[in-house]
C-alpha cells in the first residue's frame, strides 16, 4: 500500500521556549492505517498533529501528504491541501448555536466559493451526503438540533461527520475521547475505526489511554519530550516500551486492560 503521509526529520521549537516540542520526528502512514500516538502530557502529541496540517508551522523538516510536499506550499495551496485532512478535537469545537446539519456542512467550506459560504449555499449533493453520514452515526434525527443541546458523545459524532464531509485521506484526532464517559468513548472509538476501515482513510489518534490505543489501532507511536521513542505494532508494545515512553516504572502507571493484571 502507498504512503499517504510521510514525515522527514520534522522539528518544532516554539519561540520563547528553548526545549523543542518536536525533535527529528520521522514516520510514514499507509493508506487506511490507524495509528495511535501515546506519551505523557507535553510530549508533543498535539504539536505533532497540528504540524501535519500546518496549523502549527514546523521549524524544520519535510512533510509529504499524498506525495506532495506540504511544507513547501504557500498559503493558498495549503488551504486546498487541508481539505484532505480531517481533524477531530477533544472539545469537539462545534459552533454551539448552529444546528447539527450546519456544523456538519462546515466540513465543505474549503470546497466552496467565499460567496456561497457567506450565504450558506451548500450543494444538494453535499447535503445528501451529510444526511447519509448522520444516519450512519445515528444522528439523523438530531439534524436540526442545536449542537449545544447534544451530549458529549453526540457532539463528538458530529465532529466526526464534519471531518468526513471533507472527504479526507487522513483523519487527525486530538484526544477524541478525553472528555467522554467510558460508554460514549467506546462508541466514538468504534465509529472512528469502522469508518476509517470502510472508507480506507488513514487515521492518527492522540490518546492518553494505553489500553484504548492497543485495542483500536494498528500501530503505536510513543513519544517522550518531542522524540519518537517507539514506533511499532500496537500488540507488540511491551512494558519496557511503556516505561520508556512515559519515563516512569510500570508500577506508577495506570495502563488499563489486561496489562493492569500482569
Amino acid at each position, binding site marked *: 500500500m502507498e504512503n499517504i503521509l510521510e514525515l522527514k526529520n520534522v522539528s518544532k521549537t516554539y519561540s520563547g521556549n528553548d526545549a523543542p516540542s518536536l525533535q527529528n520526528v520521522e514516520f510514514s502512514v499507509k493508506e487506511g492505517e490507524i495509528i495511535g500516538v501515546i506519551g505523557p502530557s507535553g510530549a508533543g502529541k498535539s504539536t505533532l498533529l497540528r504540524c501535519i*496540517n500546518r*496549523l502549527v508551522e514546523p521549524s524544520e523538516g519535510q512533510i509529504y501528504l499524498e506525495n506532495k510536499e506540504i511544507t513547501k506550499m504557500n498559503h493558498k495551496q495549503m*488551504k*486546498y*491541501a*487541508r*481539505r484532505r*485532512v*480531517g*481533524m477531530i*478535537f477533544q*472539545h469537539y*469545537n*462545534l*459552533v*454551539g*448555536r*448552529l444546528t447539527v446539519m*450546519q456544523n456538519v456542512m*462546515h*466540513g465543505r*467550506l*474549503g*470546497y*466552496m466559493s*467565499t460567496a456561497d*459560504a*457567506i450565504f450558506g449555499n451548500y450543494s444538494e449533493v453535499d447535503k445528501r451526503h451529510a444526511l447519509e453520514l448522520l444516519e450512519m452515526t445515528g444522528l439523523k434525527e438530531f439534524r436540526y438540533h442545536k449542537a449545544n443541546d447534544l451530549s458529549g458523545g453526540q457532539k463528538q459524532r458530529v*465532529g466526526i461527520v*464534519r*471531518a468526513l464531509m*471533507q472527504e479526507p485521506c487522513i483523519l*487527525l484526532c486530538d484526544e477524541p475521547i478525553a472528555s467522554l464517559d467510558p460508554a460514549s468513548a467506546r462508541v466514538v472509538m468504534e465509529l472512528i475505526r469502522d469508518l476509517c476501515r470502510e472508507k480506507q482513510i488513514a487515521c492518527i489518534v492522540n490518546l492518553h489511554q494505553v489500553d484504548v490505543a492497543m485495542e483500536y489501532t494498528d500501530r503505536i507511536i510513543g513519544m517522550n519530550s518531542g522524540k519518537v521513542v517507539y514506533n511499532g505494532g500496537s500488540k507488540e508494545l511491551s512494558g519496557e516500551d511503556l516505561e520508556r515512553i512515559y519515563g516512569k516504572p510500570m508500577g506508577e502507571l495506570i495502563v488499563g486492560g489486561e496489562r493492569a493484571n500482569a
Partner: protein
Amino acid sequence: MSTLELEQQGALSAEPELGERIAVKPKGADMPIYIFLAASAILCVVSFFVLDLNWGKVIERIPNLGSVVAEMLHFSLDKFDLTISTLMETIATTILAVFYGLIIGMVVGAFGAKNIAPWKGLATVIQCVLTFVRAVPTTVWALLILACMGFGISAGIAGLLFHTIAFFGKVFAQTFEEVPEETLEALRAAGANRIQIFFGAVLPASLTGLIAWSALRFEITFGEATILGMVGAGGVGYTIMAAVNSYQLGRAGLAVVLVFIFAYIIEAVTTTMKGKLKVL
C-alpha cells in the same frame, strides 16, 4: 461532673488574656480604597471653591422651577404637525445612523478583534483610534460635520455615526473575541479561509450579542439624535430648543413628553427582545 468542674470549663471558654490582636487581613489591604476616598473628598472641596457657587441664589429660584414645569405641562397643540414631523425626523435619523453604524461597525469590529484580525497590530491600532473617537463628545463631532457640510439631517447622521461606529467597533470586537479559538481552529483545519470562518462560525456564534448591543445602541443614539437637534442638526431637538427660546413652554413640554414616550417604548421593546434572545 461537679458544679466546680463545670465552672472551670466555662472559665476556659471565656476570653483569655492573649495580648496582641490577630489581624484577619494583611495590614494596609484596604489602603487603595482609603486613598481613593480621601482624593475624592479633596477634589469635591477644591471644585466647590473653584466654581464660586451661589447656592443661596439657586435655592431662592427653586419656586421658579415649579412654575416652569407647570407651564410646560400646559400642553399646547400649536404647530403640533411640526413637532410630530421633527420627531419622525429624529427617529428616522436614529434608525439610519444605527443601521449604517452597524454595517460599518461590524467590519471595523472584525478587523479590531484580536482573534480574527489579519494581524494583531491592526486590531490594537483600530481599538486606539476608536477610543479617541469616543473620547470626543458627539456634539463636538456633529459641530465639526456641520461646519463642513452645513446644517441639516445628513450632517446629523454623519455626526452620530462617529460614536455609533466607535461603540459598535469596540463591543463587536469584544463579542467576536469571545468565540473560542478552538472553534476557529476547527474551520481552519477544514481549509476554510478567513472570510468563510467569519461568516461560518464567528458571526453565528456572536449573533445574539450583536442584536443585544444594537438594541442598547439604538437607545443611546436616539438620545444623542435629540440633543444634536439643539446644535442645529434638525429634528425634534431643534423644535424643543426653538420653543423654549420663544417661551412657548407648552409646546416644548409636549415635545419632551413625546420624546420620553418613544424612549420608553424602545426600552420596553429591547427588554422583551433580550429576554427572548436568551432562549436562542
